[in-house]
């Protein structure tokens, strides 16, 4: 089949930035189709982190010596980069965390324990990643709040007509929703949910881990109250993520972790907390990782989020058309117009783990499993799916290799 995508990106040039593609598997570069799980790292990010460790590294904030100033400038510069990336009103509202998961836990614990109680309702969605599901389930059970979900339809899209029933049921205090589903790629109508949450007097917590790498995020346009993202899904290092939150909410919240750095003064009988954002950053942070996070944002911003999004959309349309040709493959999720670069599917009669195993022998990396969305898998009536996901370095040829590989899967096990 002729490759029919007219990519918005110069993928040949971009692929040269990624050292992992230089390693050949069976004479060919790995067809890495698992970017929704984690992305590969370009030289620009790796070089920046190395240079930082070699020339600018010291602990941050405290040191009077010039090397510590440079380290602090690197770390705080990364914070400004994240703030700009999200169009946050202030960089003080950007807190570095270990991951998007930790960002959500921070809100669930620090905001949830303080503000939830019996009679209150926490609303999540049936699509949620466990990271934006389990913390809320736990805090709801700890505080006596009810835990409800927005259901999905068969195409994996939120059933918004269920909102009225939810609103009648109880006093909704928090709505937690992912911007893009990691399992199906569904793009959720967050602006609409934000308006609804605020009508209920609730706050809305947005998990943007799966969205931020692929589309422009503007927290002011979204109107949300908290937004979580991670670095490793957008070409940056693992071990660092960020939480953006409205200043007045962050200021009213108790700290999440306690210790050094987050204090203003400590006494035997009284300890006062530091100002934002440091109040939420106890301990020595992931300094070089923050710098790498910033470098990754610079890297993808220079390419341009709209161009990345278009490229992934073209690949998704192409992949869905090619998988459509296979009568024994069943795809899950909404049409390409309302999904990000993720295609989840089932090969008739073959367990996803076996699919992934055979594809690996063909030099194709896909994800097989429940994708940390067990309630969604239950709703779809499957134990697991096989998932192919794309990023800026993905190309149509890899989709063709996936399809060829699936034919082998079908022939050997189907």
């Amino acid at each position: 089949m002729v490759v029919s995508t007219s990519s918005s990106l110069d993928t040949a040039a971009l692929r040269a930035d990624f050292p992992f593609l230089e390693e050949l598997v069976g004479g060919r570069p790995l067809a890495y189709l698992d970017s929704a799980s984690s992305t590969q790292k370009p030289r620009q990010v790796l070089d920046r982190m190395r240079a930082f460790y070699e020339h600018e590294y010291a602990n941050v904030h405290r040191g009077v010596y010039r090397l510590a100033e440079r380290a602090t400038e690197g770390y705080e510069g990364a914070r400004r980069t994240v703030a700009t990336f999200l169009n946050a009103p202030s960089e003080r509202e950007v807190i570095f965390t270990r991951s998007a998961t930790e960002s959500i836990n921070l809100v669930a614990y620090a905001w949830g324990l303080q503000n939830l109680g019996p009679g209150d309702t926490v609303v999540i969605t049936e699509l949620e990643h466990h990271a934006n599901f389990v913390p809320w389930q736990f805090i709801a059970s700890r505080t006596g709040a009810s835990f409800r979900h927005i259901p999905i339809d068969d195409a994996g899209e939120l059933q918004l007509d269920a909102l009225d029933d939810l609103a009648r049921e109880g006093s909704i205090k928090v709505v937690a929703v992912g911007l893009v589903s990691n399992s199906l790629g569904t793009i959720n109508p967050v602006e609409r949910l934000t308006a609804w949450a605020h009508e209920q007097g609730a706050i809305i917590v947005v998990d943007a881990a799966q969205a931020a790498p692929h589309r422009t995020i503007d927290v002011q346009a979204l109107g949300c109250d908290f937004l979580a993202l991670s670095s490793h899904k957008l070409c940056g290092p693992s071990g660092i993520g960020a939480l953006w939150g409205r200043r007045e909410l962050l200021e009213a919240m108790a700290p999440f972790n306690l210790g050094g750095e987050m204090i203003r003064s400590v006494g035997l009988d009284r300890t006062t907390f530091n100002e934002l954002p440091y109040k939420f950053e106890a301990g020595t942070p992931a300094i070089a990782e923050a710098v790498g996070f910033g470098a990754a944002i610079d890297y993808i911003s220079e390419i341009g989020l709209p161009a990345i999004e278009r490229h992934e959309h073209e690949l998704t349309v192409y992949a869905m058309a090619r998988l459509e040709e296979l009568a024994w493959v069943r795809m899950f999720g909404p049409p390409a117009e309302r999904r990000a670069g993720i295609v989840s599917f089932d090969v008739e009669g073959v367990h996803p783990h076996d699919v992934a195993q055979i594809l690996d022998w063909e030099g194709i990396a896909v994800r097989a499993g429940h994708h940390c969305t067990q309630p969604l898998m239950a709703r779809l009536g499957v134990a697991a799916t096989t998932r192919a996901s794309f990023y800026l370095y993905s190309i149509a040829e890899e989709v063709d290799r996936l399809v060829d590989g699936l034919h082998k899967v079908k022939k050997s096990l189907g």
Partner: protein
Amino acid sequence: MSEFEQLYREVILDHYKTPRNHGLLDPSDAVAEGQNPLCGDEVTVSVRFGEGDVIEGVGFEGRGCAISQAATSMLTDLVKGRTAQEVALMPKEELLDEIGIPLSPVRLKCALLGLGVLKVALHRSKGTPLPEEWGTSSGYISVE
């Protein structure tokens, strides 16, 4: 000029060794204290107002590095005779010009500690705006 002379210029050392307006006022109309969590500098500032919210007297006590204490001393000279509102809106650059030395981001916090504390005192008694970095964010743990 050596780096030492640039930072610890004579006027800084003079204010450090012989602070102006040292000691808290009694009685006073407003008091506030603050710390710099980075290095543990402490400053307490007290203020007395005359007619029309004009700062008639100001006194401070503190413990910390030469920059933090000298800057607070210079600040007290600077603000006497001005209204609470004027001082609340005073840009930090005015004090930094007076200090007149190159300051790294960490030392900047030392230099601006006294100004922040003074603005908190004015806020408490006159409701004037707080500087951004001295919002209500801190909170505390207290144990018996």
